[in-house]
């Protein structure tokens, strides 16, 4: 709460709010894209204390200012699985299993990286610990406009990918590959004082022991007491993560590689959401096909973004590439907004323009689904945080 208060002050300094600082106002736009509902032309939305109070074509309220704007209003977009914003302070590498760690204590809500996301219409970002540990602790979900963290966003991070073996001292001839810090400064050879493991079966057993320890943090993953973020890459890893989730009725999100679509049916049965890997030069064909398969199977999914490494606009480009592979426009939009919200269990808070949800909006000069459409304004929690002076108010018609 302390941090939140601080960051709200800072957010205000980024862009002096025009519509209203707090309190209530009505936004009236030419086209209001509710998300998984209709497009209202024109449409109005009543915002009260940062939360959407009412949506419709004839919304009115006493003594509430109306802001008339031209263009298309949509919900803010959601980026998943960012490890770059937290940086080294977001993960503790000294233990292989550290469920008590909380990334929020390593999170700088003032980081300019959030601002860059905000300018591209991304109002919420899911931050994952940049960790090579088996259990890295809890991640967080932050609003880009303010740094505000969502209470329900603290998923427990569990690794199933080979990245977790990178810090394990490597007893190969020469011994210089892998190993990292502990190779040189810790006890040499194959001893791992911090409990690191070197193999999938070794890590799997450790994980099994952890969730079966009664009363432990990890045991709360069973049955969905704590949401999980299961990090995987290859299909084999993803299917191992799925088996783990099914075995313990874990709820949460599975971060998966480009070929995850081949497991879409099994994922659908597991009830997990999917964070689709960052699109890279090497994987876009499989990744886009996977998006189509996930949509077909009815699996909620969104796209990962490494915000410090890649332009925030690539989130929309990922969705556009998926359309090329056959993903419908509505499903592509869903992956950018409420599909991503569903994938991380925040569909009650964000993702669409609906009463009760956070007032996160983007005002576009055209259809939000068109790559040529530009962002004019962005609101986060009811506060306008971006106004693009380079586009003309009124938009292309």
């Amino acid at each position, binding site marked *: 709460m302390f941090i939140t208060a601080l960051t709200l002050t800072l957010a205000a300094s980024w862009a002096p709010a025009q519509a209203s600082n707090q309190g209530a106002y009505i936004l009236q736009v030419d086209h209001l894209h509710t998300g998984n509902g209709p497009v209202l032309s024109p449409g109005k939305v009543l915002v009260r204390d940062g939360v959407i109070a009412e949506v419709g074509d004839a919304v009115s309220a006493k003594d509430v200012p109306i802001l008339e704007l031209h263009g298309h209003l949509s919900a803010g977009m959601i980026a998943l699985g960012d490890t770059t914003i937290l940086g080294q302070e977001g993960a503790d590498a000294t233990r292989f299993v550290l469920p008590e760690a909380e990334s929020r204590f390593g999170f700088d809500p003032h980081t300019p990286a959030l601002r860059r996301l905000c300018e591209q219409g991304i109002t919420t970002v899911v931050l994952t610990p940049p960790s090579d540990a088996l259990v890295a602790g809890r991640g967080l979900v932050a609003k880009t406009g303010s740094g505000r963290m969502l209470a329900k966003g603290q998923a427990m991070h569990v690794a199933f990918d080979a990245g977790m073996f990178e810090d394990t001292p490597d007893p190969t001839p020469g011994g*210089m590959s892998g190993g990292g810090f502990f190779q040189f400064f810790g006890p040499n050879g194959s*001893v791992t004082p911090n409990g690191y493991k*070197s193999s999938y*079966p070794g890590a799997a057993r450790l994980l099994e022991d952890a969730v079966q320890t009664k009363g432990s943090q990890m045991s709360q993953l069973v049955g969905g007491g704590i949401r999980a973020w299961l990090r995987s890459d290859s299909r084999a890893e993803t299917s191992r993560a799925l088996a783990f989730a099914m075995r313990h009725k874990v709820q949460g999100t599975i971060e998966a590689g480009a070929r995850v679509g081949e497991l879409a049916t099994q994922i659908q049965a597991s009830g997990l959401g999917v964070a689709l890997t960052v699109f890279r030069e090497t994987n876009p064909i499989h990744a886009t096909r996977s998006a189509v398969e996930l949509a077909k199977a009815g699996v909620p999914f969104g796209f990962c973004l490494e915000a410090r490494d890649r332009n925030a606009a690539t989130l929309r480009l990922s969705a556009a590439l998926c359309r090329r592979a056959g993903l419908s426009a509505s499903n592509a939009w869903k992956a950018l907004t409420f599909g991503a919200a569903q994938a991380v269990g925040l569909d009650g808070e964000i993702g669409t323009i609906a009463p009760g949800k956070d007032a996160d909006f983007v005002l576009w000069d055209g259809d939000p689904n068109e790559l040529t459409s530009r962002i004019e304004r962005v609101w986060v929690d009811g506060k306008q945080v971006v106004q693009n002076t380079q586009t003309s108010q009124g938009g292309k018609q």
Partner: protein
Amino acid sequence: MMRPMKTLALAALLAGASDRASAQTEAKSSGASGSVYADVLYTSTGKTFENVLVTFQDGRITTITPGAKVDDQVPHGAALTAGMVDLSARVARSEASVEQTNEVEASLSVAGALDLFDPNWARLAATGVTTVLASPPDRNVVGGLSAILKTQGPTDIAERQLTGRSFLRGAMGDAPSSGNRPAWGAPNSIYNRRPTTRMGVEWEWRKAFIDAASAPDYPELEFPGADVFRAVLAGNVTLFVQAFTSIDIRTAVFLKEEMKREGFGDIQMWIDSGAEAWKDPQLLKRSNSGVVLPPFPADGYSGENSFMAWDVAKQMDELGIPFTLSAYGSFSLGSTLGDQAGRAMHGGLAFDKALAAVTLVPARVLGLEDRIGSVEVGKDADLVLWSGPPFELTSRVLAVWVSGTPVTQSSSATR
């Protein structure tokens, strides 16, 4: 360990229940059934049939009809054999397939580390290898339990794995001792626990066996995986030890004999990659151990500078030492398991012995001779159709069926 595995299987089964059910019906109606015609059928049981039509249904061989008429609709080749079995297939595994933070890790299975989505499985299957014993890589002294699986089938390990004998995998020699040194400097601290010599490797083995055998009386000696060692001593789990050189084969045999002498138990042992089994064959024979011969080297030198000529298979046969051949799971032209059998023949081994060494003998080692390893009615339809005499350099594999499902071009080029 067993309980979670079962739950896993059940959970995974439920996960893809509908998907898999439809896949199976599909397989039953088309994929897992069919027929094949060959000029000669070598059954691996010593029988040979000519102009034979073999039909199979639901993954099992249903009829074998010699003297049948050629049917244009049926795949036709010069020779038909059983699918081959490689006991030392090194495929779809990585550094992360073996737990190296313990020198002796007997309680983990490589099953949890195999990548069944790896396209190399299909490439291996296309060479005629239909069943493998997959073992953890030899990076520590005892790597864990091996897994038996078909080269094609469900991508769920719980469904893919075959239930036969259990194998505890480990190594003698310099595989687990080489490189276990700090990044620089001498291994001069108590934290350098891992063996750096063959003596150290042997010590780990003996200590594990003796501790495990003594733990019922001295509970402080109990360690994770000790029960697996006790199962090995009881003869319920086969010890599968990599030992290329004669010195390492001797060490393994002496260990086995010591355990028997001390009254701890009679170990069932198979030597993997016993390239120098020919050097002290009487010792091997005396120990009742079998040997998996590594791929025949072109220059005479196999792993760890062991020397191995192409007549080693013939020598093993003449001495009556059980042996099988391995290609390490290679699918490269000229070094497949069929090619290894060809080299063994070049070294003087008779064709039927070479065929047995890649089919029925390894099937028996796995305890699965009722299911695989020969072409008989009721057995799995694991079949290889050859363009000419099997194992000849001029012959190639025309078609392969794994449990009645053809290995297709598309499945061998999935990446």
